[in-house]
């Protein structure tokens, strides 16, 4: 034991129990650095825990702070030391090192972890070579598969391009040409329409002019005609009266029959028929029947004959 160690041991004797002193003494006798022993002492652990930590340090475990600060019992410390000794790193040890876990559980977990780590270890060269060879075979096979797939793609896409895309392109081209033709047609029709509209416009203007002229002329004509018609109607009425006067000369024609004759505005032929009726001796009522609704002269004649025949039949002739 070094002088420094002996001095520290003397200091410890004042504060530590006998069992704790045994552990410290053991560590110092082994030749552990005083600084490490100081850390263990300062952690104020129970003697068995202190002993377990110092044994771990003697085994070459470097994680002294983790062991001192963890508040583990002696068995838990042993499991931690065992894990670190068997090649687990601190992070891996932390996965099973918990105050709440019993040492037995920690032991099971530690063993599993150690085993899985062994499995994961880099395989031997021979195994690696074999795997690499296998992998290269798969790589070649994958390249071949890709090439074949690519060839199929090239063949199929060329077919699609030839039969579908080009056909569709032609269709689009045709449609485009058709559209252009129709556009041209529409343009021509629009031009024609514009011309026609212009013509219609011109004609309307002409028509308007003519209409105005015609209206002026017709107004004048109307005035003239009205004057003439007044004169003509008056003359006609006079002539009719004159003719009727001659026809009825010496006959008794009642006033109502004459009024009706004037009202119906009968023609000369019709008036002749009326005269015949009077001559034949038809009564006023019968003459009125004959001229009712101003029938044609022939019809008047027939009606007169019928009335006369009916008279004869009534008389028993």
């Amino acid at each position, binding site marked *: 034991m070094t002088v420094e160690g002996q001095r520290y041991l003397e200091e410890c004797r004042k504060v530590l129990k006998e069992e704790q002193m045994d552990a410290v003494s053991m560590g110092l006798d082994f030749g552990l650095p005083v600084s490490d022993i100081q850390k263990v002492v300062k952690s104020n652990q129970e003697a068995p825990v202190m002993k377990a930590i110092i044994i771990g340090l003697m085994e070459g475990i470097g994680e002294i702070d983790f062991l001192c600060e963890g508040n583990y019992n002696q068995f838990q410390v042993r499991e931690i030391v065992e894990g670190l000794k068997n090649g687990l790193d601190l992070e891996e040890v932390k996965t099973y090192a918990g105050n709440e876990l019993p040492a037995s559980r920690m032991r099971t977990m530690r063993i599993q972890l150690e085993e899985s780590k062994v499995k994961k270890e880099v395989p031997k060269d021979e195994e690696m070579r074999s795997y690499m060879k296998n992998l290269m075979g798969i*790589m070649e096979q994958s390249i071949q598969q890709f090439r074949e797939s690519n060839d199929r*793609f090239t063949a199929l896409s060329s077919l699609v391009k030839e039969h579908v895309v080009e056909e569709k392109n032609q269709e689009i081209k045709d449609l485009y040409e058709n559209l252009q033709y129709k556009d041209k047609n529409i343009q021509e029709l629009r031009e024609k329409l514009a011309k026609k509209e212009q013509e219609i416009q011109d004609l309307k203007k002409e028509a308007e002019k003519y209409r105005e002229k015609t209206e002026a002329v017709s107004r004048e004509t109307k005035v003239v005609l009205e004057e003439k018609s007044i004169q003509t109607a008056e003359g006609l009425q006079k002539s009719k009266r004159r003719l009727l006067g001659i026809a009825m000369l010496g006959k008794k024609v009642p006033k109502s029959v004459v009024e009706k004759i004037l009202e119906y505005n009968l023609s000369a032929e019709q008036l002749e028929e009326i005269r015949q009726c009077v001559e034949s001796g038809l009564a006023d009522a019968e003459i009125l029947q004959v001229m009712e609704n101003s029938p044609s002269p022939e019809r008047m004649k027939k009606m007169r004959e019928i009335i006369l025949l009916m008279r004869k039949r009534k008389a028993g002739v």
Partner: protein
Amino acid sequence: MAELEHVVKTFSLLEAAEKEQPFLTREQKQDLYRIAFHKESMEEVEKIILQLQAPHAGKEEKERILSHYLEPFFQVPENILQIENYIFQLQYMTYEKEKANHMLAALLKQENIQYDLEAMLTEGKIKAAVPVKKDRAMG
């Protein structure tokens, strides 16, 4: 030992799962392909995808799941890992190309176009060989 078929099945499963929203990064997918490549059972791969797809699974959770399933496989050097990734990429490109091929074939069928693909492929190979000869002749 290595199941390439599982990797290809994983493409379609992932495609269906990610239809609405992608949930894995490129690196995470590569890890998943590696798991599928080494797993003996495809059912297990499907279960892993379901775990990864869980709505509550964040980035860290997904990485924890993936590393948990990757753990049992022996660790390989970076260059071998790279080759594995090349294989997965090649397989993925082939998968995508085949999808395109199916679409083209369907289009040709729809247009009622008859063709002999095998004959075309053979002819294509011959044609591909001809320019080489010509070049040599010209050279």
